[in-house]
């Protein structure tokens, strides 16, 4: 086979494979960026939605408590305090022990809960809990029957400092075994003099477990109050992030935004920023509940777009398999092409050669026939075997002429060569039987 044809054939096959590889590689790189961005956008959208939901839930939890305490204050104006406590200011502990509100109480100007021991641990039917259940719950919450702080003077002081103040929400306060915060409404007489306050005390841990945790799906999350007290941090990444956030001075800015948003009637403020956590870069998404709390989700970039990466890996595997199959198909086609090309070249060479042979043989036959005819023409009479030999020579010449004509038909493409491949041997051709009879001489 022509070496150039061989090289051209394989070069073409290689080129096609390379082009396909480039297209697939380009697609892979494009998809890699696109999928990561898409996955990242989708993930951020989900995080944003979740944070907005938490913000709304925290807002609702706060204002439900504010409304409850305000209602209780109104009742204090028309009920006997002891009766009010018996009728309304009871502490429900549901059998599963899950309750955001640790307790509701009336506090006096001395800052003490009155009557601090009066609230009973009862179920939703208003009956005392089963002693065994109570004992079980008290193992986890020893403060169950007496959750109150030593003093709520900070509540009284807040209302005394601002006579117009209608509600109060405290920062996180360390109580035995847990962090709590207090929501309160002022109890004033008709002249506006402060008589005390109604408070609701809630546990941060319980708030997190009931409101936030179901939506975390294992993300790193922290919850902090306006003074920088960390209420919840789900893992070390969250703790580290909260520490950096606090140290950066971003908390007062976030709370200022939260206050402004609350004044505009919104749940709070929100935003995002990039943090450096060790060697990794993390994205922090935060929301405030007014200017009281801030909840934040932190994620390192390596974790983002993981779904996109999985999809990309699948595409990469499929692309690689496709490329291998394409290369195999290209190789097989090239082999067949080169074999066919080889036969075509052989055929073309044979055809050209038959033309040359024909020319030479016809000239030689002219000489032989001339001599043969001369003998036959010049010999007088019958010369026996010599005359017979000359006649046989004439017949042989005519046979050769027939063969030459067949070669000429082949040379003109009027008949075709049919390739008969033979295992282990060189190629062999024969004239196509259908065309052999149809040639023009």
């Amino acid at each position: 086979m022509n070496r150039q044809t061989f090289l051209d054939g394989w070069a073409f096959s290689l080129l096609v494979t390379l082009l396909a590889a480039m297209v697939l590689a380009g697609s892979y790189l494009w998809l890699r960026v696109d999928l990561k961005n898409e996955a990242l956008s989708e993930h951020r959208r989900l995080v944003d939605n979740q944070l907005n939901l938490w913000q709304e839930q925290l807002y609702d939890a706060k204002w439900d408590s504010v409304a409850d305490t305000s209602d209780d204050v109104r009742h204090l104006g028309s009920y006997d305090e002891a009766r009010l406590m018996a009728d309304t200011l009871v502490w429900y502990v549901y059998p599963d022990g899950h309750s955001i509100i640790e307790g509701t109480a009336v506090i006096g100007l001395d800052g003490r809960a009155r009557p601090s021991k009066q609230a009973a641990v009862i179920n939703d039917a208003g009956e005392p809990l089963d002693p065994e259940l109570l004992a079980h719950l008290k193992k986890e919450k020893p403060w169950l029957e007496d959750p109150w702080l030593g003093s709520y003077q900070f509540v009284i002081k807040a209302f005394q400092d601002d006579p117009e103040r209608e509600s109060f929400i405290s920062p996180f306060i360390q109580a035995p075994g847990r962090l709590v915060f207090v929501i309160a409404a002022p109890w004033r007489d008709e002249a506006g003099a402060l008589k005390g306050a109604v408070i609701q005390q809630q546990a941060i841990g319980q708030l997190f477990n009931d409101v936030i945790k179901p939506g975390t799906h294992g993300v790193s999350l922290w919850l902090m109050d306006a003074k920088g007290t960390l209420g919840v941090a789900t893992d070390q990444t969250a703790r580290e992030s909260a520490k950096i956030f606090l140290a950066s001075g971003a908390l007062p800015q976030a709370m200022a935004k939260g206050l402004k948003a609350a004044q505009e009637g919104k749940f709070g403020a929100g935003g995002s920023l990039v943090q450096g956590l060790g060697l990794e870069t993390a994205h922090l998404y935060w929301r405030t509940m007014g200017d009281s709390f801030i909840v934040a989700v932190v994620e390192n970039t390596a974790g983002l777009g993981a779904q996109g990466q999985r999809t990309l890996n699948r595409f990469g595997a499929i692309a690689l398999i496709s490329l291998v199959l394409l290369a195999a198909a290209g190789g097989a086609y090239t082999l067949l092409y080169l074999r066919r090309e080889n036969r075509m070249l052989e055929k073309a060479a044979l055809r050209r050669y038959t033309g040359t042979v024909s020319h030479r043989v016809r000239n030689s036959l002219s000489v032989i026939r001339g001599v043969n005819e001369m003998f036959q023409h010049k010999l007088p009479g019958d010369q026996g075997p010599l005359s017979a030999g000359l006649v046989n020579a004439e017949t042989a010449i005519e046979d050769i002429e027939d063969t030459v004509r067949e070669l000429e038909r082949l040379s003109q493409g009027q008949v075709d060569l049919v390739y008969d491949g033979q295992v282990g041997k060189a190629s062999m051709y024969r004239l196509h039987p259908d065309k052999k009879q149809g040639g023009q001489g």
Partner: protein
Amino acid sequence: MSLILIVDDEPGVLQTFGDWLESDGYEVASAGSAEEAMAWFRQTNRFPDAALLDIKLPGANGFELADWLSKDFDFDNVIFLTAFFWEEETRQELVARRRPYFEKPLKFTHEVLPFLRRYLSENQG
């Protein structure tokens, strides 16, 4: 005695053809190429009665030689010889020129000599 010029690059053909024509009473001249034939025409005062021109020749071919003879010497009594009548291009050219031709291998006793006798007789007549 009629003079016949044979132009062929095959010495065997020239020799055999010449022997046949001489044995039949013709005067024979020969050339191995178109250029040689043109030189013969320029050097000789006498034109042949017929020129047998092989088509495939080294250098200019038989068709070109016929054109030169016609143009330079106003000589058109040419008869072509060819081993390529099977070739479409050659066959079409021969038909278009409307000149006599013999296909190789030449059949002297049954084709060439009878035709030449008739042809020369008609042209001389």
